[in-house]
């Protein structure tokens, strides 16, 4: 406990020092944040920025190695769980990684996605039935080539990519039956290789409640972006944003002149957190700020020079007990509808709606058509906060 206290104080001091350093480089009179219209445009472009190739190749290699071992070794595991943070879309990363190597892989494997949903079905108790039905249809669609021979390695061609595991359960009675079914089925269906993306928080939870890791024991973590990878990824993007050279007098705040190791450390190597931290550090010179900024056309550079301050994590608002429970539920489940959150938390929908609305207004959560989710830039601080408040986190797996 004392260790935790020291860790928290150290983290707070470090973060304070970083902010102080950032402030020392930034004179309030000289710089200002981007106008909202430009901020939105840059944010959109940044969201569309594909993940670094090296990152995707690293993931594809992990998958290739696991599948190849299964194809060549009789007793090798026939599943791979790919773990990422709740703010990194592990399912999308896996898809992108497989597409990166698509020409090579599709020649050797038959990649199937029996379930097309990426967010939880409206009735979470139906997930087990949907999984069973999908497997049944898959078997029916395959040509019957005689007797089942489990020792025949040449039959090992099919790779099944499942939806993210956090979207295959809800924390309520009967809510993880689908995962239990999957846990018991994967080992018996050795002619298929199962690729299962999941977030670390959901994995830690499922491990406690139904010991999934005892059955699905081949696990790989998403790679972490280090300072060089971040620099290689974001610097070319930054160059597309401005044509105007930065003022020489302000060269310490020139675009790209930030501590990439700080960015890597603050983001924990997560691309989604890094994107937003980098965006948050962009500045304009106060004198360059137009009174009426014009919307940017696609691909247009900003008409004024861009500057950058040291990245820093935003502060969290004061959170009360229900806020913590709601945030923890979203860490476990990823993007989730309010009705499902209410069922999981055992609270009325109106209370969850009110709490979600407050957190959304303070920027901790974001809302999309699929439901509420954690705003990635707050992920590092929320993790520390929940850990200090005795919650099970992704690091407890």
């Amino acid at each position: 406990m004392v260790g935790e206290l020291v860790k928290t104080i150290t983290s707070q001091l470090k973060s304070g020092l970083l902010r102080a350093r950032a402030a020392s480089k930034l004179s309030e009179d000289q710089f200002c944040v981007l106008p909202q219209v430009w901020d939105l445009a840059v944010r959109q472009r940044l969201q569309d920025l594909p993940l670094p190739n090296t990152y995707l190749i690293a993931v594809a290699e992990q998958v290739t190695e696991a599948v190849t071992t299964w194809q060549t070794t009789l007793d090798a595991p026939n599943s791979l769980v790919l773990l990422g943070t709740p703010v990194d879309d592990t399912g999308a990363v896996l898809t992108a990684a497989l597409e990166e190597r698509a020409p090579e892989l599709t020649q050797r494997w038959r990649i199937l996605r029996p379930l097309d949903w990426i967010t939880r079905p409206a009735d979470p108790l139906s997930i087990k039935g949907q999984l069973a039905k999908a497997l049944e249809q898959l078997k029916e669609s395959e040509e019957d080539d005689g007797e089942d021979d489990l020792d025949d390695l040449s039959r090992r061609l099919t790779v099944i990519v499942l939806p993210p595991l956090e979207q295959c359960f809800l924390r309520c009675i009967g809510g993880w039956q689908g995962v239990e079914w999957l846990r018991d089925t994967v080992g018996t269906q050795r002619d298929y290789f199962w690729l299962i993306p999941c977030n670390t928080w959901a994995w830690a939870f499922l491990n406690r409640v139904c010991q999934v890791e005892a059955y699905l024991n081949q696990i790989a973590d998403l790679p972490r972006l280090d300072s060089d990878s971040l620099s290689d990824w974001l610097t070319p993007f930054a160059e597309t944003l401005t044509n105007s050279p930065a003022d020489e007098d302000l060269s310490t705040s020139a675009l790209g002149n930030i501590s990439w190791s700080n960015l890597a450390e603050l983001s924990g190597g997560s691309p989604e957190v890094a994107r937003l931290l980098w965006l948050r550090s962009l500045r304009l010179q106060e004198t360059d700020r137009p009174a009426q900024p014009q919307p940017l056309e696609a691909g247009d550079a900003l008409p004024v020079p861009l500057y950058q301050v040291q990245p820093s994590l935003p502060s969290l608002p004061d959170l009360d007990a229900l806020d913590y429970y709601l945030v923890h539920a979203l860490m476990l489940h990823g993007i989730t509808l309010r009705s499902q959150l209410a069922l999981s938390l055992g609270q009325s929908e109106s209370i969850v709606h009110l709490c979600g609305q407050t957190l959304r207004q303070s920027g901790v959560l974001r809302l999309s058509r699929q439901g509420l989710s954690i705003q990635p830039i707050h992920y590092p601080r929320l993790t520390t906060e929940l850990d200090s408040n005795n919650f099970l986190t992704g690091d407890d797996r």
Partner: protein
Amino acid sequence: MNISLRALPSFLIQTDTLRNTEDAVDNLLRDISLGRLFKAALSVLLAYLLVTAIQSLTNWLSEKVPRQFRLVIKQSIPFLKGLILLGVIAYMVRLFLNVSQQNLLALTGTLAVALGFAFKDYVTSIIAGVVALFEAPYRVGDRVTISDHYGEVVSYGLRGIRLQTFDDDLVTIPHSVTWSDPIVNSNSGRLEAQVVTDVYVDHEADLSAITDILYQAAYSSRFIQLKLPVKVVMRETPWGTHLKLRAYPMDIRDEPAFRTDILRRAKAAMAEQAIVYPRVKPMMGLDD
């Protein structure tokens, strides 16, 4: 003065003893001046303000920091208060008394006699409080049961502790109970403590299904500490089966809410499975 000759030596001895005692008291006490009285009053006032400030500050701070640090901060209150009290007593003694080895012996003897008769219970409680600080049968923030009272220790005073019960009553219990009464501490300085939820079903009920429901009810409660084990145990009684779900909430303060949440979830699931509850009222106590 009419004193017989036989009684004279004894009278002289008594007079001598009295004179010696008066001398000893004169030696022991310093002159009481207005300045000293003012200093004493000021130090008492300062100590009172300091104790009040520490109590308020630590209570406020402990509710603001993350849960893991709440009890550490709360548990420091008695020590800090003790230190202040000790400092004030030492200062007052130095202010009014000449503390030499001989005087100290005389003072201790006098105090022992005075306190032994007049403030026996009070002193017993104070001494028990000091012992309890180190033995720690209870600390601020703990959930304890003492003499049929169950609640959270919210204050640790000189003479006793205060428990806040679930019904929001404040029960004051002297430290001296530690000498004689059993003290049941649920969490012993930890945030978590085991919470037992009782469920009663008929002999014919499907125990496997009920056990599964209870496990799932516990694991799906938002209050549960998932890092600690969950157990369901059962016992037969003449009127039905008594199941006990043993689980830990993340924060012992959530004990009633945790139990309520588990029961609400479990009963909703059991209603769907038409679980049979005991059909007759128990003829004996629940423990039979």
